[in-house]
């Protein structure tokens, strides 16, 4: 499998008032296309920072981040945005649906931003995805009418609708009960299998990590271990 994410000796510093917080202190990571990996670590370990760099919403202080062959340091804001739109999908801890739009419209939204699909094509793709996540009957509902698990399914559909190469999920189950969390992870895994989409999700929950093909452990801004799932006691 080709390498889709390549991170080499990346450092990320934040300036908080006069203190410099070293969120990442020389991280190397390589992710192959089609992987289903978890970035694990406690709060403040740097996992969200790492996810932000992969998600092209932030850039590294030094080192190289290559996403699908693009060196993010050399891209403009506009190009980074385009990369996020076309190559990446996002699933958020708090779901982050647009409250005023219906389920269908939320999922359709990235396609509209892409401006390259016809109405018919969009409808077909949105309907197909909603069916896959089991929400085809809720297409016209507003997010506020849905449960947490349902909202996260909408978010998954939205992340996948542009057929991205990578889907990033930041603590996707943190706001869900464990049963719902399991079904969400199962759904993500299913999508990973079916579409060969690379999934990278962060978590601090051991039970959630166990779903991953590979777990990357991070602590104090460094990767402490990267191993296949189940290899860890």
């Amino acid at each position, binding site marked *: 499998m080709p390498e889709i994410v390549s991170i080499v000796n990346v450092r990320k510093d934040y300036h908080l008032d006069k203190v410099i917080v070293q969120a990442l202190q020389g991280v190397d990571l390589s992710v192959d296309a089609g992987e289903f990996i978890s970035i694990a670590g406690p709060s403040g370990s740097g996992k969200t920072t790492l996810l932000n760099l992969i998600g092209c919403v932030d850039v590294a202080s030094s080192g190289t981040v290559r996403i699908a062959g693009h060196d993010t340091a050399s891209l403009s804001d506009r190009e980074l945005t385009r990369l996020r*739109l076309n190559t990446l999908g996002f699933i958020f801890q708090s779901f982050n649906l647009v409250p005023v739009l219906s389920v269908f419209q939320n999922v359709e939204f990235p396609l509209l931003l892409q401006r390259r699909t016809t109405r018919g094509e969009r409808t077909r793709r949105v309907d197909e995805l909603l069916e896959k996540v089991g929400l085809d009957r809720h297409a016209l509902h507003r997010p506020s009418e849905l449960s947490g698990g349902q909202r996260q399914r909408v978010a998954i559909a939205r992340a996948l609708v542009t057929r991205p190469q990578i889907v990033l999920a930041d603590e996707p189950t943190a706001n869900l009960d464990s049963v719902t969390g399991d079904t969400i992870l199962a759904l993500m895994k299913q999508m990973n299998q079916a579409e060969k989409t690379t999934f990278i999700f962060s978590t601090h929950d051991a039970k959630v990590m166990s779903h991953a093909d590979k777990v990357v452990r991070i602590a104090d801004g460094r990767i402490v271990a990267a191993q296949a799932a189940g290899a860890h006691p």
Partner: protein
Amino acid sequence: MTLQSLRALPSEAALLVRISLRNLSGSFLNLIIGMIIFAGTLFFVVGGSIINSMDTGMSQSIIGSVAGNMQVYSASSEDSPALFDNWNLPDLAAIPDFSKVRAPLMANPNVREVVPMGVGSALVVCGNSADTALERLRKAVEARPRAPRGQIESLKAHVRQIVNVIQTDYDSLSRVAVKNAVDKQSVQDLARASSDAFWNGFDADPLGHLEFLENKVAGLIPDADQIYLHYAGTDLDTFGSTFDRMQVVDGQAVPKGRRGMLLSKFVYESFFKLKSAYRLDEIHEAITTQGKKIASDPDLQEFVKQNRTETREILLQLDPLSAAKCADIVRAATGSKETALPKLLESFFDTTDANFEDRYKVFYGQIAPMLELYLLKPGDMLTIQAYSKSGFLAAINVKVYGTFQFKGLEKSDLAGSLSLMDLMSFRDLYGYVTPEKVAETKRLEAEAGARQVSRADAESELFGGDSLVGDAKEGNINDKAELGDVAQRVKSQDLVTRTYSPDEINQGIALEAAVLLKDPSKLKQTMAEIQALSDAQKLNLKVVDWQKAAGNIGQFVFVAKAILYFATFIIFIVALVIINNAVVMATLQRVREIGTMRAIGAQKDFVLAMVLTETVVLGLLFGSAGAALGSAAVAWLHHAGIPAFNVFLYFFFSGPRLYPDLSTGSLIAAFFVVLFVTCASALYPAIMATRVSPIQAMASED
């Protein structure tokens, strides 16, 4: 941008609008923004329509009454025309021969008519009640023995009644006045005139007795009215056919080519009418058309007070028979047992909201037929004296054919006080005669036996010896006598019946000329053409538009408009600041949502467009609602009318009520103003929103 991306554009715009519409109900702030825009648009549409209607009405009133679309006047003038400035006559140089100006101006294809004019003012003296009564008695006496005996007796009784009224005045004056303040001779004269002996001896020497009354008694009545008359001399025929706002109210138009005058109805009512009657009219109108109440309106209370105390004009007019009849009527109307007529009239005029309409009816139905309501009636001659251009006092007699009004300016003493006079009479008063006309005038005067008598001439002629004036008079120059003299010796009937040809009217001086256009929208262009023509042909003219020609009044329009636009401007500036703040707050509440959109691939442009679209959609929605309600309000006002509370408003409204039309201009302007204000106020928050980082979408929810 590819073809595909273009095809998706409407969808994206639709998405933006959809997000905005959905967001409308999402925030309380939007409601505040919406209400501000709603109120602003409402104000703009209603205010704009009212101002526009006022502007249109007023400009049509001004243009259609006397100003025309533009005015030309001599370039040598010190001032510029100010047709409606009653108290301030502009210093205009004369156009020596109007016909030489008219012809070239009429050659301009856009000129419909050129009407010569000149504005002047004069004091007009109308005789008092005693003069009128004595004059009648003298005529009756002179007509003996043809005059019926009863008529003379009745007139004698009236004069005696007048003497009694004056006697009563002097008695009360003597009681309160300091010693010597009352002229002893006058007291003696009055005593004689009121004595039985005087009246018993009247028939033996009526002329002698009349002379005593005329010279010694009539002068003791201080009620001779001096009326300030503001007039425009013009070619009355052309004027009448050109200015559509002019309408004859009483009497008739001045016959074609004749000398004559039409008094402004407003002036006729205000100054020539019996004051008590005029005040009753004013109260009546205020109550019926403006819904005012005597009990609550200080102006009306003042009228009532004046009516109670100023009854002498009525008392002087009544002969004993009428006085007795009047007393009966008043007793019946008031239920009073009083016998003295002055007291009775005082209680009669003590009107309240409860009894006013009854008293008004009684006055006009029963008392007025016994009175002369006007100092002058259509068909009467009016003597006008005015200081001419060269400084001497010129006087003419001119027949008043009736009254007229300018529709829309009827009640306005700002603009409705202009009376109309024929151009020949105006020229006589103005006193400037072209050399060519001197000879003809001389010939005419010789034919008619007429002479213009001015003070300066009169003096030189008097002391020079052999003039007619010298023969007729000895010693004192008395303005009044001199005028009477003119009235007698000008065989005014000859001038009155003479018909002047259009050429005679045109070939003489004019002070200015109103130019009426076929296409008023080309005003500026035609003004420029006429100015160029004047310069090229050395006509020595200056051109001003109607607004300037109207004088200060024309500027009021501008000021009213400026005030409205300034008020609107302030409202929208305030709206802009408030909306700006509200949108900033609304945007801060949505940082997470905006961050999410940025994270999943929305460009900054999209976020910018989204915030702008939302505010603009909000603006257009509430703006449309405001415009709709505004239009409804204007439609209602168009039906109901806005009452004019005072003379200023009467003028601005061109009538007692303004019936505003919805102005499409205001609607269109409101649309663009709302668009501009919302865009401008949302611009900063929209730019702020583009700075929201996609990282902010990642932050956890608290």
